[in-house]
């Protein structure tokens, strides 16, 4: 019996132990970088710095709206996950001074294409705005402006149908015992002791020379592998200037409806924190904002990277440590800048 139990334990215990470690230290609902990087983290790490703050969402989302009546708002925001941070998002800070409607992300996978479709349809007849804030993550911006269908239409009916038939498409990491995650999570965390980016991880973990970037993390930076991979688009000056041509065109279309366009590009964590990365030999210089900021624009533009870099000089946690997203500190700084532009 003893021999049997010992042998069984030999085969089973390591896997149970790994699973238990994962249950205790891996939080898939915490920051996206920790999730896709299979990183162990402390429960509540993402939110610790902002506990109990900003809990009330003040802006309206389109899917909550009564679509049978005409609606008036100061601002329409349309964008990706940076625009869906609920109470901690830049649009919620704006909602202190303006009435804000946000176009749900599930209705606008590519916000740039969707904005064009809304302009072509009856959306802006039924809903009135003074400003549209078009937001996009930097790494996706150039691609989102390519292969655009300028004549495509989305009308209110189509939006109503999409809202009624909404499905939850979040990919779920299996939490079952017999799952590749049971092996990958501990293996990845071991590899992090040696490598910046382990085999199965999509998150880089690099040393920085700044000591005050994140609470409790002396000199580490996490960023998404696509921030680096997409440099091929992000550093291509000719493609960047073509993107700007399209945004100018969208601005003209909105002007015809007496609406002003404001473009907000959310910097990739890699670009924002690049000056702080200790060993730059392995990492190319990001040039996107150098090119984009210099282009001639017929629309309102937020120089987000400059605002956030200034913020880095005075505050920790401008972005969340284990997420690709800015924190309420970053979001607030951005919203203050938008506020001042719109007020003038």
């Amino acid at each position: 019996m003893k021999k049997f139990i010992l042998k069984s334990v030999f085969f089973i215990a390591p896997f149970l132990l790994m699973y238990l470690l994962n249950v205790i230290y891996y939080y898939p609902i915490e920051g996206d970088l920790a999730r896709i990087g299979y990183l162990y983290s402390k429960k509540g790490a993402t939110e610790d710095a902002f506990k109990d703050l900003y809990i009330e969402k003040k802006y309206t989302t389109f899917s909550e709206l009564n679509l049978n009546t005409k609606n008036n708002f100061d601002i329409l925001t349309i964008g990706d996950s940076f625009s869906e941070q609920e109470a901690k998002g830049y649009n919620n800070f704006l909602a202190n001074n303006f009435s804000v409607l946000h176009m749900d992300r599930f209705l606008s996978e590519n916000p740039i294409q969707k904005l064009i479709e809304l302009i072509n349809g009856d959306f802006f007849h039924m809903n009135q705005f003074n400003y549209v804030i078009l937001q996009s993550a930097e790494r996706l911006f150039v691609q989102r402006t390519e292969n655009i269908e300028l004549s495509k239409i989305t009308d209110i009916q189509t939006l109503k149908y999409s809202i009624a038939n909404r499905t939850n498409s979040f990919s779920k990491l299996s939490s079952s015992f017999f799952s590749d995650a049971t092996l990958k999570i501990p293996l990845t965390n071991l590899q992090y002791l040696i490598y910046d980016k382990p085999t199965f991880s999509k998150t880089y973990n690099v040393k920085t020379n700044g000591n005050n970037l994140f609470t409790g993390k002396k000199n580490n930076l996490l960023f998404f592998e696509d921030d680096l991979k997409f440099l091929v688009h992000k550093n291509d000056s000719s493609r960047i200037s073509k993107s700007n041509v399209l945004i100018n065109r969208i601005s003209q279309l909105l002007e015809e409806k007496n609406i002003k366009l404001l473009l907000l590009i959310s910097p990739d964590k890699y670009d924002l924190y690049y000056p702080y990365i200790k060993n730059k030999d392995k990492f190319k210089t990001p040039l996107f904002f150098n090119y984009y900021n210099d282009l001639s624009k017929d629309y309102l533009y937020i120089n987000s990277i400059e605002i956030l870099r200034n913020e880095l000089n005075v505050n920790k946690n401008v972005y969340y440590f284990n997420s690709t997203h800015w924190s309420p500190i970053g979001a607030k700084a951005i919203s203050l800048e938008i506020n001042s532009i719109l007020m003038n």
Partner: protein
Amino acid sequence: MLFNSLDFAIFLPIVFLLYWFVFNKSLKLQNALIVVASYTFYGWWDWRFLALILFSTIVDYSIGVALSKGKNQLKRKILLWVSILINLGFLGFFKYYNFFLDNFIEAFSLFGTKIQANTLNIILPVGISFYTFQTLSYTIDVYRQNLKPTKDFIAFSAFVSFFPQLVAGPIERATNLLPQFYKKRVFKYNKAVDGMRQILWGLFKKIVIADNCAQYANIIFNNSDDYSGSTLVLGALFFTFQIYGDFSGYSDIAIGTSRLFGFDLKQNFAFPYFSRDIAEFWRRWHISLSTWFRDYLYIPLGGSRGPKWNQVRNVFIIFIVSGFWHGANWTFIVWGALNAIYFLPILLSGKNRNNLDVIAQEKYLPNLKELGSMLVTFSLTVFAWIFFRAENMEHALSYTFRIFSKSLLNYPVFEKDDSAKLILLLIVLFIIIEWLGRRHKYAIEQLGSNWNSMFRYTMYLIIILLLFWFGGNDQQFIYFQF
């Protein structure tokens, strides 16, 4: 509680340790522990239906006792029918009520009569088809005086609810399992190790083969109108391995778990896809159900004796009832009928007992004739599975018609076909291992038995790693719904 869940991974060692270290002083206590553990295991899914198992246990125990006292043949017959009606009554209500009601309404509407009747929102209790047949076998065997009725209620409760095989079989006969509850069980190292090995192989079949095949089978069957004939064939193949891996995997885990507690359950699958004809297939597929129907339905009807017409009738009855046992849907009935059609020519030509041994018994590989007959039998089986898997008859027929179209010659293409290639490779590896182990009770029973223990342990470790690597696509055990 699912065999492939963490809950079971915690539950099993606890019960094992209590069984061998705390309750080992008394047989009664060990049996009582099995009852408590079994009710916990079942109640984990839905405790409300425990009352049904308990009721079934009390009825058949009492009838068994009454049968032993009764000398009057008529009275004994009445008691037997009371048991049959109660057991099949529950099964009929929970499983077939809505099916019969819908079909009556539809049948009457064909003659212009509209019947107002509402179907009920009935939850099918997991495992009801299995434990109902198990308790019925007890009453019938006691009635036939093949078995002495038990006076030990705890042992009988343990027999009815024995957790390893409660929800999806094997359907054990009282003559085999019940006496094991009367004897003191002694822990045997080799038996326990063999049990663990069979559990490991069962998990591999379920998690690596069945659950991964299910992903692709589901995509192809659920969108069958969008795919070419060749892709639909691939879908049917995926389902063929899904159902085998799923059900025989469950049986392996059940048998292996029972061995940890000192019990021997009967083999439920004996490498059915290596069968040379359909009669052999049915001797190797879901053996506990096939033999149940053989002993309690086919033989009482006359079996293969008597006029040809009676033989044909009996074959159709047994296969259609077997199909209907799987579920209240015409697709299962047609699946059963198809198998009857496959089986009849063999029976009528007297060749149904031609292949009683193992294919290529003394050889590594089959000869051409064996290979040919194996491939024909396999193809017939795959075709029949289409009806088993389809949502309804319309779906089954459209699926079949699409297969037999020009697109059958196209290269199969479907969403996720890249990752499917890896699973196809795993299936090939699986077939090779099953082939090598076909002379044994399960494929890896003797695999590596002559090797240095280091190599053998490495093999087990690789299988365990595969469980994790290809795991995570959890699917409900198919036979839970039956």
